[in-house]
């Protein structure tokens, strides 16, 4: 049985766990703890080590989705999780520009770990306060060739699109011979 891995990363409360949950065939194995710090009370629980989801492709191939913890104090996990990944997805909350700086930092960190393809998922685009995709591109200082995709982590079709665009990016890089 062959396995491949995609890492889903991004700032705290961006929607990483939900993203994986929406497409995983297993209940997402999520190492969670209740949030204790008042400053982080935007949600009840948080991922402390990683989320783990699975999509069985066929009898010989399984795709694992690994979600990184968003809180900075768990960033020691990022390098471990990024080893051997096919690519990564940076999920960003489109309603919280205060997290864009952290998103930039995560992006730079992952790019330094491995030269693998990535896409950015602008999550919570169904919210009226969501930033426009192209404004987010500027705020996140994304190069024009980097895909930033509208996403709603609870909607399967939107999550599928993000995953597919990452795979298309990888295929395109292979076709252009950058090996």
């Amino acid at each position, binding site marked *: 049985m*062959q396995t*491949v891995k995609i890492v889903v990363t991004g700032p705290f409360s961006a929607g990483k766990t939900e993203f994986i949950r929406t497409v995983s065939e297993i209940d997402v194995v999520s190492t969670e703890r209740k949030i204790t710090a008042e400053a982080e009370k935007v949600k009840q629980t948080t991922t402390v080590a990683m989320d783990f989801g699975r*999509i069985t492709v066929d009898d010989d191939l399984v795709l694992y989705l690994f979600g990184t913890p968003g809180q900075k104090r768990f960033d020691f996990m990022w390098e471990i999780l990024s080893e051997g990944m096919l*690519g990564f997805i940076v999920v960003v909350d489109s309603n919280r520009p205060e997290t864009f*700086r952290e998103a*930039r930092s995560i992006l730079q960190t992952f790019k330094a770990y491995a030269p*693998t393809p990535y896409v950015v998922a602008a999550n919570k685009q169904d919210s009226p306060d969501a930033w426009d995709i192209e404004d987010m591109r500027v705020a996140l200082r994304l190069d024009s060739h980097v895909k930033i995709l509208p996403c709603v982590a609870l909607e399967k079709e939107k999550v599928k699109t993000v995953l597919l665009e990452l795979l298309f990016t990888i295929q395109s890089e292979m076709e252009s011979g*950058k090996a």
Partner: protein
Amino acid sequence: MALKGNLRDFTITQLLNLVNLAKKTGTLEIQGSGGSATVIFREGKLAYAQFANEDASLSSILHRNKKITRSQFQLLTNRAQNMTDKELGLLLINAGYVSQEDILTSLQSYFINVVQRLFTWVEGFFQFEQNMTLPEDKIAVKVDLENLIIEGARQMREWELLQDEIPSLEMALKFTDRPETNLRNVNLSVEEWRVVSFVNPKNTINQIAKATNLSDMEIRKVVYGLLQAGLVEIIRPGGTPVRITNQMFPTPNRDEQKNLLTRLVDRIRAL
């Protein structure tokens, strides 16, 4: 017993705070990538500070502060080599070239500047020897540490922000494709121009820092400014944004890798 450690674990600001609160007397020696420095305290106040690779003689400091002219400085360098700072200071005061106030203000300003530059050192070995004091031939000052500590704390916050923006110095820089930007019309400092002259996908930020003799914090400050202005962007060294490597796949065979991707795409579509 000497207090010793690494600035990575115990910052300059924290050291100053310790010295201030405990009203310590002693000598702090620091070895970092930028060289080495000595800072001397008396009863919790700054008495003296010097970088090993800098001329911290009284004549040099007075010249830098424009209290003596270049020709006077050269004369003193040639003729007064064997004089201690104290002897030289008395001589200059008695000859009417400078006042005691001039000397103390200049020394104070220089020592404070040394400590301020040390705030940019985020890595380095330090050792504090209690009761080791200033050599007799040097002139001591008395500077309260509170303001320096506040400034150090401010720089720490700035450092954390800069680390967030530029987490890795092993990345490279390239100029952005902005046709309307003409670097000639941009007002950059000397330091920024020096960094700009090294911007090249082949040079990591770390290499640029070494070439321009900037500390980790200083290079991050400069690069942050250039990033904010949209003049440069951070890329992987060599300029290749992504690479397809065999580590990404469970098989090294390129055809099998392509087949695997096709199967993944089909499966995701079918979800």
